[in-house]
């Protein structure tokens, strides 16, 4: 199973490396949105720093939607769907492989956004560095949920517009827990319960995905 997970992830990342959608489209979109957020909250550094965690996670969520949409599109044509089905791969391995590739992409863009947040929204470097493990956990949870909801939306002719409507409510726990954990680091308060919430969400989405992905593929 691990071999198949790695094969699927390697394939998705190779496609990304070729197309460079993350580098030339997704990352610039995220950074531009972050700049706009900075402009929207005004020039006061203390206000920007106070709102930075929430703005960061909103931008990360928007970026996630683009990455999920892109990943889902890789297997959206009828011909590719059929050829993947014919390979008879274990659906659980496909689910985890795609989530792994998405995690690598989201963690990369998320790290770039974190640097942007430090520079543009005046968050301390210490808080940004300390929140990195939380970002990895949050992006892993977003990836697992994203692959699941991307698959559900892909079965619709209006996948691009259906995906945000389906996925954003599911992302709410990740958004809240991530923002609270980041804010806790900024104001130096305990963050354990938010990390716990993220961990529970991660396990829940991984379990649901492993159970349902095969049925979603067939539908």
């Amino acid at each position, binding site marked *: 199973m691990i071999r*198949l997970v790695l*094969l*699927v992830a390697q*394939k998705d990342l*190779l*496609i990304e490396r*070729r*197309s460079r959608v993350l580098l030339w489209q997704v990352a610039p979109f995220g950074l531009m949105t972050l700049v706009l957020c900075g402009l929207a909250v005004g020039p006061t550094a203390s206000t920007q720093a106070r709102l930075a965690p929430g703005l960061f996670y909103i931008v990360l969520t928007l970026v996630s939607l683009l990455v999920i949409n892109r990943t889902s599109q*890789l297997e959206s*044509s*009828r*011909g*590719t769907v*059929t*050829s993947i*089905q*014919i*390979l*008879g*791969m274990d659906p659980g391995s496909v689910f985890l492989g795609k989530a792994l590739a998405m995690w690598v992409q989201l963690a990369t863009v998320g790290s770039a956004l974190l640097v942007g947040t430090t520079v543009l929204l005046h968050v301390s470097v210490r808080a940004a560095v300390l929140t990195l493990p939380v970002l990895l956990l949050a992006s892993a949870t977003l990836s697992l949920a994203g692959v699941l909801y991307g698959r559900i939306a892909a079965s619709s002719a209006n996948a691009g517009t259906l995906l945000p409507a389906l996925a954003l409510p599911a992302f709410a726990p990740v958004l809240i827990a991530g923002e609270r954990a980041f804010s806790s680091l900024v104001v130096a308060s305990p963050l354990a319960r938010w990390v716990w919430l993220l961990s529970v969400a991660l396990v829940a989405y991984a379990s649901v995905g492993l159970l349902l992905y095969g049925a979603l593929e*067939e539908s």
Partner: protein
Amino acid sequence: MAVASLCDVVVTAGSFPLLSGVTLTLEPTVTYVITGSNGAGKTSLLRLLAGLEAPSRGSGTVLGFDICSSQRRELRRHVGWLGHEMSFYADLSPVENLKFAARTTGADVAAITPALDRVGLAQRSKVPMKFLSAGQQRRVSMAWFMVRRPQLWLMDEPYASLDDEGRDLLSELLVTAQTSGATIVLTSHGLLPPEIDAASIVMVGGRIAKVAS
């Protein structure tokens, strides 16, 4: 033992019947050509044989797998499929696509380069699929059949988009496969090349109208 045995199989898309009570037996090492007008159910029958469609009524086995159960997923690993649409990742090259497919199915990776060479794509083997013509993409599919060596070949209009050289190559491949023990089922709107000795299955309105050897 029959390669496929279908009994009164009905396949629907929503409430629309794609196949309406198909009863059919396919014998080993025989080439079958399915003919019929547009919408007669040719592609649906191929998809059923590949385990890609679930019957809503009836029963059947293909290569010993029950197509009414979850064995359909296992069946897919034993058939080769060539459809109308491009079935590879557009951003990956033929070599990368075939390596991914071979590694996931346990096929021989070393056979990929000779197969691409055989179908005349040695010089284009590292070019992304999206830059290949429809005929060249078909040739990549042919190379995959050579690597995979499936027991049951299912091909939807395989001669479409191929030039004369490609058609000759495909015919040679089909004859070789049949000689080596494979069963081939293909659909066609036109006449097959004379070297293909095929039994005929005529479909009308989702039913088998006639089977002639």
